């Protein structure tokens, strides 16, 4: 299940939850411009495909944003 309100998806019992972008544009982000929008959507979809290949024992979050560089300010 791909959802921007992923915490809600998990508390209602979905087992493989993928963090989507936002409610109005779950798989992508028009604000990024066409190319990055598509790449971002693809990243979310690929994460969802990965999620269905992984065994889980209960509600589990798959976050396509993981691994992004975090800048300490």
């Amino acid at each position: 299940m791909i959802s921007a309100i992923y915490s809600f998806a998990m508390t209602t019992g979905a087992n493989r939850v993928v963090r989507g972008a936002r409610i109005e544009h779950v798989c992508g982000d028009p604000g990024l411009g066409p190319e990055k929008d598509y790449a971002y959507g693809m990243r979310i979809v690929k994460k969802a495909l990965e999620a269905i290949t992984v065994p889980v024992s209960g509600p589990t979050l798959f976050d396509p944003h993981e691994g992004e560089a975090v800048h300490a300010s």
Partner: protein
Amino acid sequence: MTKPVRVVHYLNQFFAGIGGEERADAGVSMRPEPVGPGRALQAALGDGGRIVGTVICGDNHIAEREGEAVAAIRAELESLRPDVVVAGPAFGSGRYGLACAAACRAASALGIAAVTGMHPDNPAVEADRQRVVIVPTAESATGMQPALASLARFALRLGRGETMGPAEVEGYIGQGKRRVWDRGRPGYQRALDMLLDKLHGRPFTSEVPFRAPDRVTPATPVADLSRAAIAMVTTGGLVRKGNPDRQVAANATRYHRHSIKELEALTPEGWEAYHAGYFNHLVNKNPNYILPLSFLRDLEGKGQIGRVHEWMYALPGVSTPVAMARQLGRSIAEDLREARVDGVLLVAT
């Protein structure tokens, strides 16, 4: 003294003493007196009510030929003209529970009050609690006496045309109905009292009962994506442009499936969102945000997934009662399983 309430009792073949499983296909019959547990029910009713007939039906008969059985029950009720129907109790028996609920629904359809009793885990509770008054009982017939006492109490009140108060007060199984009701004190006072009780470790009863979410056994993982058939489902309210199927924007009671066999991506010329729960304007420019066909076609072309399933499923997932959502979800899942789909991406807005 007021006239005694006219009660019709519904029993299965077992409790009516006709026989066990070997007679579960027995058709509908009627006896003009209390039968089996009906005798104890009559005692519990006292002078307030009188069992004017016992309608009996085999559990398999009504399960397999519900329409026919219910019509026969209805005919008996029309001639007996009771004030109330008491069905069971069915305890933990699933088939009998469903039969009792069906008998109660037959009565309601005639404007006759009805009540049945069964264990809260009986499958009929989940299926029919919204439409039928069900009192909780023990799991087996060892709890017959208290079950009959409770059924008799409800039968007398319902038979006299009394309106039931809230389930938590009256003791029947909640029907999920909301009624305007004056609790006497404003909400903030009740909430503060509850908070104080909680802080002091005193018992309190929440007015918003917690319903634990379903625990669903996770599906086994897809072994090889490059050979997998992947389907898509969206609760984002995707409809064909102009909504020719006349889907609603909220509180859906149906979903639509559309063939995407010939499509490489969803275009704004062909599709749009009709969903009362979010601003649809971005999806209307790019419907692939809620049904990622463009991405899956890309991956299909590269051999990273086996194939995109020919059908996609869409509905608006907003203001949908859980029971309806479960029913729709189950139906979609059955369809996908029948089509031997390996994995599904569900996009929820």
